């Protein structure tokens, strides 16, 4: 079992084993996303309060959920890398950081766009918003560190340490921000915890969330393969792979 794990951990084996995956992944993600979007944009009835602006939810909520999952993936890869020194984990980490940051940024932007019609302002210092912003800064920190250390063999391990430290801190941040918000000011705007949505609203949302996950995974996967090629560009197997194409 461990042997198999280790073999998969070799970038070359991984690359060879997965070379036929991505058309399938891409196709599946596209189907679910397009299907979900069509459903959400055309068939879901407008909200009685918010009207059509509620449809931003189908972009915003999955993005916000993925923003956090992305960090988990990054930190997970970081732990694997720190403990077992599997190079592939470092590449996975490098591949997921910009993606996670983009998704977080998307959540921030769509949230802000949604905020304008519903709250009348682009931004409030609400607990959830703030912790998403901090999450974004954490991603940016990891990326900034990697970019600053570019070309050093230790970049990966340094980023891994930082990601893990961030992971320890993330729940504390979330908790304290929640507390901060409730301490300072009665909630004038509230992101309801679990809105009592009708089924015809949350089912397409679920589809969209699944679609986002598939999409995220697919892009991550392609970036990972790309990263493998870049890092191993001077090895023989990459040279022959390139010349075979």
């Amino acid at each position: 079992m461990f042997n198999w794990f280790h073999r998969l951990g070799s970038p070359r084996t991984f690359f060879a084993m997965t070379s036929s995956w991505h058309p399938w992944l891409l196709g599946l993600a596209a189907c679910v996303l397009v299907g979900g979007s069509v459903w959400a944009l055309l068939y879901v009835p407008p909200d009685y309060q918010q009207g059509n602006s509620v449809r931003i939810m189908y972009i915003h909520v999955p993005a916000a959920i993925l923003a956090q999952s992305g960090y988990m993936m990054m930190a997970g890869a970081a732990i694997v890398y720190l403990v077992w020194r599997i190079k592939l984990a470092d590449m996975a980490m490098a591949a997921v950081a910009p993606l996670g940051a983009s998704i977080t940024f998307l959540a921030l932007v769509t949230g802000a766009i949604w905020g304008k019609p519903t709250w009348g302002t682009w931004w409030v210092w609400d607990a959830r918003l703030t912790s998403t912003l901090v999450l974004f800064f954490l991603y940016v920190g990891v990326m900034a560190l990697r970019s600053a250390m570019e070309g050093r063999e230790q970049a990966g391990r340094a980023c891994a340490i930082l990601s893990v430290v961030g992971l320890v801190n993330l729940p504390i941040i979330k908790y304290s921000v929640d507390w901060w918000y409730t301490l300072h000011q009665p909630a004038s705007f509230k992101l309801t915890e679990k809105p009592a949505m009708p089924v015809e609203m949350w089912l397409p949302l679920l589809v969209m969330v699944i679609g986002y996950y598939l999409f995220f995974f697919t892009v991550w996967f392609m970036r990972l393969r790309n990263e493998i090629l870049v890092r191993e560009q001077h090895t023989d197997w990459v040279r022959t792979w390139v010349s075979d194409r």
Partner: protein
Amino acid sequence: MSFFLSSVARDLRVHIRKPSEVLNPLVFFAVVISLFPLGIGPSPEQLSLVAPGIVWVAALLATLMSMDLLFRSDYEDGSLEQVVLSGQSLVVFTLAKVFAHWLIAGLPLVVLMPVVGLVVFLEVDGIWTLALSLLLVSPTLSLVGSIGAALTVGLPRGGLLVTILILPLYVPVLILATAMVQASVSGSDVTGYIYWLLALLLLALALAPLAAGASLQLSVDE
């Protein structure tokens, strides 16, 4: 233990040789704080409303700014290599450096605090709580900051990067500490906050030197 003590002594010597080392974070703190009345307008009511926040942010920045160079000179002149080779624990080394740094840059801030508080029109209760919270928090700040300093030690321009890496991690401390001051100004009980801040301090004490030590080990590997 003797390695800890001799490291602390060495660092204190390095710092104290230049009195400006001790004074700079203080002056930085004071200057940043005194810029605010200029930027905001001097009305006392407004100022005292925002005072704890401003004081806190200035303290975070002062810590980080002076933190940035914690390991830098040891890296550049090769002392760090020697420590790594000597087989002494990097965790102890980090602890010693952070402790010396805190004595030099953290503690004076705590002492300066009441004065600064008066200047920005905090009420007198608030000031003592402010000093107490700073006393509890500033070691945490130094400990967490040392991770950033260790991660960026080999990079040509660490300063800004450290800030970017570490400030987001300071969020919980900032929130708890300002909440504590506000609670004390409004007359509530602050014991809960004290426990919280202590818990954070212990967490930082346990984990930060590990992370910083591992990063230092990385930095000499070239």
